[in-house]
């Protein structure tokens, strides 16, 4: 369990990542015991497996030309599943765009995600996911929203509510990263900033993004308690996030987590990573694969044997396919949809523009 002492031990200045299990999933400390029950751990593993399966299938749907783009999550799933477990119903999720498992945990349906990446804003309406923002395309700009939401939660007296806000390593270069952290700190806003440091921003490696010894130290600039975490270690992430949430909702203000990980897939489906990174680098990180490590732990701890994993995956695939098919059956994108949501009430000028176009369409018929 993370406490203030451990936190001091892992002061980002020391540049040591908080980690609980090794690359094979074996606990680093003989005395360490996870705080989760076996059942919870197994559930987490299944969620991770589900995210991975859905993610790989999304990539293949895209390859088949059935979605116009897609940003793979491969290798970063432990962060998402851990965050999903910590994030409560009343908490806010402010995504960047590469947190699939965390979205699912919040109640976003795969159907919606597929619909969005097929190119329909209806996929960002999130019928069931409460307090979940849409994908933020302009890098880092979403973090400022998180700080504002944090202020609102405090202002409205929601004492047990936190805001989980995501950004990538590249995103830490943007001015909005700085402004968001500063506002949150000055306002003691209950925001947990999670930097998924997956080593690259498209083709640009971290060393061209910043000279700081790690990203967690950037919290010092705002006096935000920060922790560098092995983002591929499910237990370390779970622990860190649990601590961060407790910190945030206790009124102590924001918390920053650098989750050190690796984007094992391409940036998006139109990217070719072989242009800018080596096979060796990829292979080294494959040793740290979060799924492999969690599985290793489960086997080591004798929690489960994975006899029926094939069947589970098959069942997942069926479910995912159904979600995708549902997305494909989504009602057609109508002209009305272009106009209807711009304002609470459709202004005359938009009516005029729509009518003019409809008149043209009418004339064509």
């Amino acid at each position, binding site marked *: 369990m993370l406490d203030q002492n451990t936190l001091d031990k892992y002061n980002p200045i020391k540049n040591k990542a908080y980690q609980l299990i090794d690359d094979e999933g074996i606990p680093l400390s003989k005395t360490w015991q996870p705080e989760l029950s076996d059942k919870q751990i197994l559930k987490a593993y299944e969620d991770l497996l589900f995210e991975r399966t859905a993610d790989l299938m999304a990539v293949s749907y895209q390859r088949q030309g059935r979605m116009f783009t897609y940003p793979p999550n491969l290798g970063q799933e432990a962060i998402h599943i851990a965050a999903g477990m910590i994030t409560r119903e009343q908490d806010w999720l402010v995504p960047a765009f590469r947190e699939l498992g965390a979205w699912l945990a919040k109640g976003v349906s795969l159907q919606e995600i597929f619909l969005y990446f097929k190119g329909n804003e209806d996929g960002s309406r999130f019928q069931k996911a409460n307090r979940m*923002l849409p994908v933020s395309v302009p890098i880092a*700009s979403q973090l400022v929203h998180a700080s*504002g939401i944090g202020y609102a939660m405090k*202002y409205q007296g929601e004492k047990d509510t936190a805001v989980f806000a995501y950004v990538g390593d590249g995103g830490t270069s943007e001015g909005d990263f700085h402004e968001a952290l500063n506002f949150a700190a000055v306002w003691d806003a209950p925001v947990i900033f999670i930097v998924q440091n997956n080593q690259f921003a498209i083709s640009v490696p971290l060393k061209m993004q910043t000279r700081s010894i790690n990203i967690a130290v950037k919290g010092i600039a705002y006096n935000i308690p920060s922790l560098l975490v092995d983002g591929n270690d499910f237990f370390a992430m779970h622990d860190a996030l649990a601590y961060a949430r407790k910190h945030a909702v206790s009124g102590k203000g924001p918390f920053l987590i650098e989750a050190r990980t690796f984007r094992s897939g391409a940036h998006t489906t139109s990217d070719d990573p072989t242009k800018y990174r080596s096979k060796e680098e990829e292979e080294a990180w494959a040793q740290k694969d979060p799924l492999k490590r969690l599985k290793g732990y489960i086997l080591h701890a004798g929690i489960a044997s994975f006899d029926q994993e094939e069947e589970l995956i098959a069942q997942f695939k069926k479910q995912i396919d159904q979600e995708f098919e549902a997305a494909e059956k989504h009602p057609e994108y109508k002209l009305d949809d272009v106009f209807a949501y711009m304002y609470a009430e459709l202004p005359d000028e938009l009516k005029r523009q729509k009518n003019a176009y409809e008149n043209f369409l009418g004339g064509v018929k």
Partner: protein
Amino acid sequence: MKVMNLVQAINDAMDLKLAEDKSIVVYGEDVGVEGGVFRVTEGLQQKHGAERVFDSPLAESGIAGTALGMAISGMKPIIEMQFDGFVYPAMNQILSHVSRFRNRTRGKFSVPMVIRIPYGGGINALEHHSESPEAYFGHTPGLKVVIPSTPYDAKGLLIAAIEDPDPVIFMEPKRIYRAVKQEVPEELYRIPIGKAKILQQGDQITLIAYGAMIREAQRAIAIAKQKGYSVELIDLRSIWPIDRETIAQSVRKTGRALVVTEAPQSYGPAAELISIINEEAFLSLEAPPSRLTGFDTVIPLPLGEKHYNLSPERIAAGIERLIKY
């Protein structure tokens, strides 16, 4: 009724709304203890508390972006950009998010917020303190853009803006902040956003202006009147949406139109109004719908501003030229 200038009327609108609706907060640079560099928020912190009226860090993108965050989570922030030229660091938040969040989420999250911006020249200021950026916002789908020219309109429009479920850019003609005084009702009232106002009837030409240019237009009309010209004056009040109907009816009647704006000419606000006139009243036109605007230059520092500012004489000459066309 109480005689107020624009500063007081705007302050009054915020004061009344703050008292009525706890979801409203007011923040920005120096708006708290200081009461704003133009004193527009004077007294509001003392009255409504530092949790509701407060100074933010000096970062406009942060101000606009956090306001969006508040707006989508149950609050109604009113933020101030200290001067027109300092809204530019917030452009990404305004253009990419504030204006679009509702559409992006198919109406799930709307963005009820007001961005107040003192704007325009004529106050002898440093560079970046005399900008007229309304066309940037008018060209951005998803925003409403409002500019009052009188205390009465300022109060009623700001109350409407605060109550609007969509984001409103509320631009305040700082040049006439204290110059124009008027009786203003003490209670809450609304002026619908999107309606222009005919300030003066006339039948030879339609003059279209807004903000601080209204005063210059009125002075020009006085000059033109001496020559016997009859000018209709439209105060646009809402930059987007534009009240096409009022413009159309007027120009169909007068056959001539002159648009007066402080902003630079090219791709400026006047061009849009001229296009609308073409669309709505082409067959009535007896002269080309025309514009008198700022130059396509930086607004000069105070010693040069006289060359840039549109004088009533110049507007009057424009009126005469078109009537004689």
